[in-house]
């Protein structure tokens, strides 16, 4: 299950988080429409860009394995940050740490902090379900709900009670399918089963579904690995457009994809963050020998 839709409504969190607008507390989920989505001005890739997510000396252990070793990273707003690295380097583990998807794996322990707009998301008072509404995730294989295209997009929004009117929900569904670059292809068959869509379309539907709950950050874990090249191109175009209004972090083992779509690239190796920088520089003049070896495929 990708995000909060199937989560149990009860939570063991205690108290309210001491945070400016209380957005991550349990009360949110039943509350009114929260704030604005992605209304921030797009920040160019400058040193002054707003930092939305920040890992601060973050460690993660699976039973018997130190998977993330002191990761410190700033994720700037309104940009695509690509995370690359060989299999087993920790990039997917790190991505899942950004919205506490790792909570669902037994035996995990973490140290350090992950800050979302300055708030430590691992604080005891944070409700992971509310968190995952604001930091959505898209996985490698699209898993659509066994319902209509319309209902797939509306489902999460309904759970979070984001629109009280039918007209509002319709507008939301249309907007999100449009943002995901799927509207034109499905607008005449919204009531048809989502399972009838092609893989590439389903993946865009999943993106629309994530958008429908008004996230601020979208995390994508190898979103086009299982998708054909043409559909991949469409999804990449979609991500580039969405980056104007959202913060996007994409894990990919496709180096050309990282080069094509991202403004910043992060290289992981053996659970460590080896190098991070503007994509153009990482791909033309990497500072670390290990980054160069990985990018040029000299990695044995």
């Amino acid at each position, binding site marked *: 299950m990708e995000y909060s839709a199937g989560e149990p409504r009860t939570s063991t969190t205690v108290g309210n988080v001491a945070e400016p607008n209380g957005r991550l507390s349990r009360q949110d989920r039943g509350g009114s429409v929260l704030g604005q989505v992605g209304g921030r001005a797009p920040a160019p890739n400058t040193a002054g860009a707003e930092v939305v997510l920040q890992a601060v000396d973050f460690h993660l252990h699976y039973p018997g394995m130190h998977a993330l070793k002191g990761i410190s990273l700033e994720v700037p707003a309104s940009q695509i940050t690509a995370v690359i690295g060989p299999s087993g380097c920790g990039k997917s583990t790190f991505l899942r740490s950004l919205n506490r998807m790792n909570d669902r794996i037994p035996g995990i322990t973490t140290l350090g902090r992950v800050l979302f707009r300055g708030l430590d998301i691992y604080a005891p008072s944070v409700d992971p379900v509310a968190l995952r509404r604001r930091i959505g995730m898209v996985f490698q294989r699209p898993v659509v709900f066994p319902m209509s295209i319309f209902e797939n997009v509306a489902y999460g929004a309904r759970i979070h009670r984001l629109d009280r009117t039918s007209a509002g929900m319709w507008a939301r569904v249309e907007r999100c399918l449009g943002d995901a670059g799927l509207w034109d292809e499905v607008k005449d068959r919204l009531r048809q089963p989502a399972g009838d869509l092609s893989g590439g379309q389903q993946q865009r539907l999943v993106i629309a579904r994530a958008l429908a709950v008004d996230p601020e950050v979208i995390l994508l874990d190898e979103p086009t690995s299982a998708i054909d090249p043409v559909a991949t191109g469409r999804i990449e175009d979609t991500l580039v457009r969405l980056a104007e209004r959202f913060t996007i972090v994409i894990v990919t083992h496709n*180096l*050309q994809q990282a*080069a094509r779509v991202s403004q910043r690239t992060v290289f992981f190796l053996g659970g460590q963050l080896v190098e991070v920088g503007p994509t153009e520089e990482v*791909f*033309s*003049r*990497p500072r670390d020998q290990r*980054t*160069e070896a990985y*990018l*040029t*495929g*000299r*990695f*044995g």
Partner: protein
Amino acid sequence: MVVRQAFQAQLNELEQGIVALAVQVKDVIARAVAALAAMDADAGREIVAGDRAIDDREAYLERECLRLIALQQPVAGDLRAIGAALRILIDLERIADHASDIARTAVRLEGEALLGPLVEVPRMAELAQDMVARAVDAYVRRDEVAARALVAVDDEVDHLFSQVFGDLIVLMGQRPEAVRQGTHLLFVASHLERIADHATNLAEAVIYAVTGQRPELND
């Protein structure tokens, strides 16, 4: 385990191709000046005719560079190396053109006797050849220091050019019948000075391949 063996092999082949081309070009410079010194118009014609083969070879290697880019998606050091290779190929081809023009002078002055010694022209040619060889060698070894050292040689060529220029002006002033030949020789000296400048571009390409920076070595 070395991965991308096929790619590495193709990169090596490209570099060897560039080295071979540089050897050819260096040889053309030597033969062109020799043809001129001997006033050998036939040798001159042969050199001019041979320029086409060099152009074809350069075009082939350029296509190889683009093929590698298209098929292997090189990044980082590999990409800079291929970018530098494209630059080097263009400059080698220009050097060969200049050498060919020197050979053309031997053809134009056919039947005449050299009115004076070529003074420092052979020395300029030697230095120019040396620069070409050392620049390509620096490329293969990715040796930034060796590349930068070529600036001093270019300075020496420039200095010799000034000398040759001055000597030829004096000669033409003293002997009006020498003006036509003297003017041709001025052009020859100028071609050699341009060859040295192009060889400095080769050095710049090497520095780019190593560091990713584009220095301006010609001043």
